[in-house]
């Protein structure tokens, strides 16, 4: 009895200790986080580019007809575009697009993540009537990514850090470090927040896949392997009618695709537990989403799902992939990186000659400081 009581008191302490060690260890899944950042950013960018020419009628003044639906929305970000002119909308829209480019490139990543999140909500939620199922997923992903260290790999921030360390250029102010995407939080907090974000986003993904799979498996039409037939008959989901007809006219092809969707969602969580089945389910989930992107004209939400699936790929796999790509793409990558620094230098030079003198002039003459 005493032994049991001891165990009951010791076990929670041991678990808490293990949890603390796990949370405060070196950040995990940094490559997955980087891929998730890039994929989600490209998904937002693709959506914004696709709708750029019709932005006025989608979310601008021309969307006044959707006002009753907009009035029900609780996003405070909507106020940013409330009643603005077409020019202001265009400016806001372009800034959001630029921030998604910066997020994808990992250039001042945290700031870009914040601007992308706010811009995405402010733009997309303006017209809830034509909202897409993937919008919620993208928003939630961007929210969790805020906590995570997503710029440790495949980013200009990482490249800049490497160059600074190599040149031993000394320490900068905390503000400057934050702007440059460097770690300003204490190591324990940075790692802890990264892991908290990782837990939140991974759990969210698993929950969504499982809920989606359970919902589908409860429907007779999914059990029979014909669920996608009716969807592919609807005009909004058949961009290439000949392709939709080719898939839906073959019972076998239709069933394979339907079951692939069902099984990758329903068994996503349990199959992640084993390294081999994890590779299978992730490859299947990515392949299914690539097919659906083309077949059902859902490229940007599919890309967001693929980005999330990428979070579960192991670091070892990414390192092998990274090595393989670097070997083959090093010359091109170096050239591009050098050009990007040339561009940054040029921008800095322009700012030095225009913006900063103007600021100094205002400070000296207007504020007299």
């Amino acid at each position, binding site marked *: 009895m005493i032994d049991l009581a001891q165990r009951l008191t010791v076990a929670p302490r041991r678990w808490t200790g293990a949890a603390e060690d796990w949370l405060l260890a070196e950040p995990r899944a940094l490559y997955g986080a980087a891929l998730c950042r890039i994929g989600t950013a490209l998904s937002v960018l693709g959506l914004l580019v696709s709708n750029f020419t019709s932005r006025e009628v989608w979310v601008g003044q021309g969307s006044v007809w959707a006002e009753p639906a907009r009035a029900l929305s609780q996003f405070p970000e909507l106020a940013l575009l409330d009643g603005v002119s077409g020019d202001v909308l265009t400016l806001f829209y372009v800034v959001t697009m630029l921030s998604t480019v910066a997020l994808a490139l990992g250039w001042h990543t945290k700031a870009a993540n914040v601007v992308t999140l706010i811009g995405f909500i402010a733009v997309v939620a303006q017209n809830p009537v034509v909202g897409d199922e993937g919008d919620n997923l993208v928003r939630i992903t961007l929210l969790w990514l805020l906590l995570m260290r997503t710029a440790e790999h495949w980013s200009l921030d990482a490249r800049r850090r490497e160059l600074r360390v190599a040149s031993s250029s000394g320490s900068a102010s905390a503000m400057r470090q934050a702007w440059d995407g460097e770690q300003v939080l204490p190591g324990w907090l940075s790692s802890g927040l990264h892991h908290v974000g990782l837990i939140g986003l991974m759990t969210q993904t698993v929950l969504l896949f499982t*809920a989606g799979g359970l919902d589908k498996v409860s429907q007779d039409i999914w059990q029979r392997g014909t669920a996608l037939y009716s969807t592919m008959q609807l005009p909004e989901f058949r961009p290439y009618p000949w392709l939709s007809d080719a898939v839906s006219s073959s019972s076998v092809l239709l069933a394979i695709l339907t079951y692939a969707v069902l099984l990758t969602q329903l068994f996503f969580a349990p199959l992640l537990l084993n390294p081999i089945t994890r590779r299978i389910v992730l490859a299947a989930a990515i392949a299914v989403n690539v097919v659906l992107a083309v077949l059902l004209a859902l490229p940007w939400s599919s890309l967001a799902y693929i980005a999330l699936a990428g979070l579960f790929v192991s670091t070892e796999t990414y390192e092998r992939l990274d090595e393989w790509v670097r070997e083959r793409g090093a010359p091109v990558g170096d050239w591009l990186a050098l050009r990007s620094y040339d561009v940054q230098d040029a921008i800095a030079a322009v700012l030095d000659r225009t913006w900063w003198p103007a600021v100094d002039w205002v400070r000296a003459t207007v504020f007299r400081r």
Partner: protein
Amino acid sequence: MSVTSAEPSAPRPWQRRLVVLLALAAVAHSVVIAFWLSPQSPVRSLFGSKNLTTYVNPYFEQSWSELAPNAQFVDESFSLRAQVKDDETGKITMSEWVDVTAVEDDSLRHDVDPARAHLMARKLATNLNGAMYGLNAKQRALVRESYTREPIAQLGPRLLGAGNDRLGAVETYVAYDVMATRFASMYAKARFDGRILKVQYLVGRRTVPPAADRGTTTVRDKDFNYFRFGFRRGYDASFEAQTAFDDYVGK
């Protein structure tokens, strides 16, 4: 990766506890989301639907059917016509019916990343169809009447007079009637020359035949079943809003 050279010291006990607390908060959040995503059950009721809604809205809003693709069975259409007055001649004419969804479908074809604007009429039709099924027979009869002398937003009290047990359905319907009236007016103004006095729209729905019948019939062989609505007073959008619509419709 840090630029500071000092070796980081081991986290203090309070720092370790703080991180664990944050992780527990993430886990608790995930549990709440799991209940939000789960179907109605006694366990879910413990949280209370209202509490769950308050928690997830707006930032964590999501649904169990979120994960595309879903099986969808209904093809919808949105058509409109308008009474147009030529202010120069004073002549009043009634336009032909325009199937806006058919125009949208042309834009969707061969476009793998279609603009969302190409789905406006279709989504309105989807929502109007859904809203109509929420109304009772008397209320549906009421929306078939014309309301050209009063703002359509005042239709609510009349509908509630015909069945006050459906407050949510009536609110939803009136919201979509307002949206459809505005959309139809702006589209008509962009399409026809003159002032829009009143508009009328109808929404259709047809169901995709079962996959087993695909050799003999497709959804395109089936006729739409229509919900008809009365005339509504034309909505005058601002110059900027109408210009945006004109540019989109391609006057």
